[in-house]
C-alpha cells in the first residue's frame, strides 16, 4: 500500500492531471458533483455525488453519427471522441459496483463500442465511505463500503490517504506518483470503523430472498403494485440518478443542414417509453412502475446469476419527489412473502 498526507492531495491531483483528465467529486451549492479537476478544485467531503458516476461511461446524451445533407445528397460523418484516457477519483463502493452491472449489459454481444472505449480508457480510484448515510443499503447487496473495488482503492484516515492498487491499470497509475509506502494498519483501522457504522445503519436485512426467477409471475401479478405506484408522478428522477439504470433512446436531430443521431437516457417511468407504432403495451403508471422494479429485482437477477440491478446507493431514496423508492418496494413485496 501507499500513502500520502491529505495536505499534499492537491499536488497529487496536479500530478495526475498532467497526463490524464482527472475527475473528482467537488462541492457545489447544490451538493457534490463530478467535475474535471483544475487548480483550486478540492475533493468533496460529501458521501456521494448527486448524479451517479455512470455518466462517465454512459453520458446522458452522446452523439453517435452525423449526416450532412446537401440538396438531395447525404454524407455520413464520424464524430466519435471517446478515445482519451481519464481518471475518476473518489468513486464510492456502490458506484464502482454499478460499473460491473452495466458492463454485463453493454459489453455483452453485441458490444456497445462507445461504452467499451470509455470503459477501457478509464482508471477508477475508489474511496471508502467514512460516514455512510441512513439511506445507504449497499451492504444488502454484498457491497463493501469499507473496501470498495476499482483499479485503486483509497481510504482517508487521520489526515492521510492510503492507496491500494487492485489492477495493473491501478499499479501503473500509482507507480510514477510521489507516494510513501505503507498505511496498511490505518487502512485496516478505517475499514473496521466503517464496518462498525454499517452495522448501525437503519436499513438492514432487506427481505430480498424471494426475488428470484421462479417467483416472477407471483411478483408480476402482486396486487400491491397498485398502491405502491399510486402516487408515482412518472418523472424520471429515480432512473436518472440511479447508477444502474441504463435505458436509452436513439433520436435524430434535424439541424437544418443535416441530421445528428444521438442517444440519450430514457426512463421506463415515462409514458412514451414503450411506445410502438401500433400501441403502447404499458398503458398505466402501474405497469411502468412495476417494470422498473421487476427489472431491478427479478428480470436482471434472472439473467445475471442472481445479481440485483441495485447497488444500494440511496440516491432514489433522497431524490424521489414523493419518497417512493426501492426499499419500500422490497419491504412491501418481499416482506409479505417472508411472512407466508
Amino acid at each position, binding site marked *: 500500500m501507499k500513502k500520502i498526507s491529505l495536505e499534499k492531495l492537491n499536488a497529487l491531483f496536479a500530478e495526475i492531471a498532467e497526463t490524464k483528465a482527472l475527475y473528482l467529486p467537488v462541492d457545489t451549492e447544490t451538493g457534490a458533483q463530478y467535475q474535471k479537476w483544475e487548480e483550486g478544485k478540492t475533493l468533496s467531503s460529501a458521501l456521494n455525488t448527486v448524479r451517479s458516476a455512470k455518466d462517465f461511461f454512459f453520458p446522458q446524451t452522446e452523439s453517435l453519427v452525423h449526416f450532412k445533407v446537401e440538396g438531395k445528397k447525404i454524407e455520413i460523418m464520424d464524430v466519435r471522441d471517446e478515445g482519451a484516457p481519464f481518471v475518476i477519483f473518489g468513486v464510492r463502493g456502490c458506484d464502482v459496483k454499478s460499473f460491473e452491472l452495466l458492463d454485463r449489459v453493454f459489453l455483452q454481444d453485441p458490444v456497445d463500442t462507445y461504452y467499451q472505449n470509455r470503459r477501457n480508457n478509464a482508471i477508477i480510484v475508489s474511496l471508502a465511505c467514512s460516514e455512510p448515510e441512513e439511506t445507504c443499503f449497499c451492504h444488502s447487496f454484498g457491497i463493501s463500503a469499507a473496501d470498495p473495488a476499482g483499479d485503486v482503492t483509497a481510504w482517508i484516515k487521520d489526515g492521510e490517504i492510503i492507496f491500494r492498487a487492485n489492477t495493473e491499470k491501478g499499479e501503473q497509475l500509482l507507480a510514477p506518483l510521489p507516494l510513501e509506502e505503507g498505511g496498511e494498519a490505518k487502512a485496516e483501522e478505517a475499514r473496521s470503523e466503517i464496518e462498525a457504522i454499517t452495522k448501525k445503519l437503519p436499513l438492514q436485512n432487506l427481505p430480498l430472498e424471494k426475488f428470484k426467477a421462479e417467483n416472477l409471475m407471483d411478483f408480476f401479478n402482486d396486487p400491491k403494485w397498485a398502491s405502491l405506484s399510486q402516487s408515482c408522478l412518472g418523472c424520471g428522477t429515480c432512473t436518472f440518478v440511479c447508477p444502474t439504470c441504463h435505458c436509452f433512446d436513439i433520436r435524430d*436531430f434535424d*439541424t*437544418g*443542414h443535416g441530421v*445528428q443521431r444521438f442517444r440519450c437516457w430514457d426512463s421506463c417511468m415515462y409514458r412514451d417509453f414503450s411506445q410502438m407504432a401500433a400501441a403502447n403495451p404499458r398503458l398505466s403508471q402501474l405497469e411502468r412502475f412495476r417494470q422498473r422494479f421487476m427489472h431491478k429485482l427479478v428480470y436482471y437477477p434472472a439473467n445475471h446469476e442472481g445479481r440485483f440491478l441495485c447497488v444500494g446507493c440511496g440516491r432514489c431514496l433522497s431524490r424521489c419527489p414523493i419518497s417512493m423508492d426501492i426499499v419500500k418496494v422490497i419491504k412491501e413485496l418481499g416482506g409479505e412473502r417472508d411472512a407466508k
Partner: protein
Amino acid sequence: MQVEKNFEPTVVAFCCNWCSYAGADLSGNNRIQYPANVKIIRIPCSCRLNPMFILRAFQRGADGVILCGCHPGDCHYTSGNYFARRRMTLLFSMLSFLGIEKERCRVEWVSAAEGAKFAATMNDFVATITRLGENKKLEDLRCKK
C-alpha cells in the same frame, strides 16, 4: 487580428396578414429599401405568434426576431394584438431575466398604410441587431454550420 467578414444578421419578421404584411407590401410598392437580412413570415394575426416560434428562430440561427401587427385597437380580429402584446411583454421580460439581450426581440405596430414606417422599423432593427452582434446566448450549437 484578422479582419472578419461583416456580420450579416439573420432577422425574422413575423407579420400579421392584415396590417403589417400589407405595410411591408406597401413599402415594396413604394420602393422603400430595407436590408435583405429581414425575412418575413406571414401569420394571420399577431396573436398567432407562439413564443415557441421565437425561440425556434433563435435556436436555428436567427439573431433578431420582430413581430409586427395591427395597431392596438385596429386588429382585424378586434382583440388579437392585445393578447399578443401581453404575451410578448411577458416573454421578452423573461428572456431579459435570463440575461438575453433585451433588444433582440421587438414588437412594432405597423398599419397597412405605413410602408415607410415598416422600412424604417426594419432599418433600425437590423442596425440594432448588427450592433448587438451574433446571437450567442440562445443559439443551438448543433444548428451551426
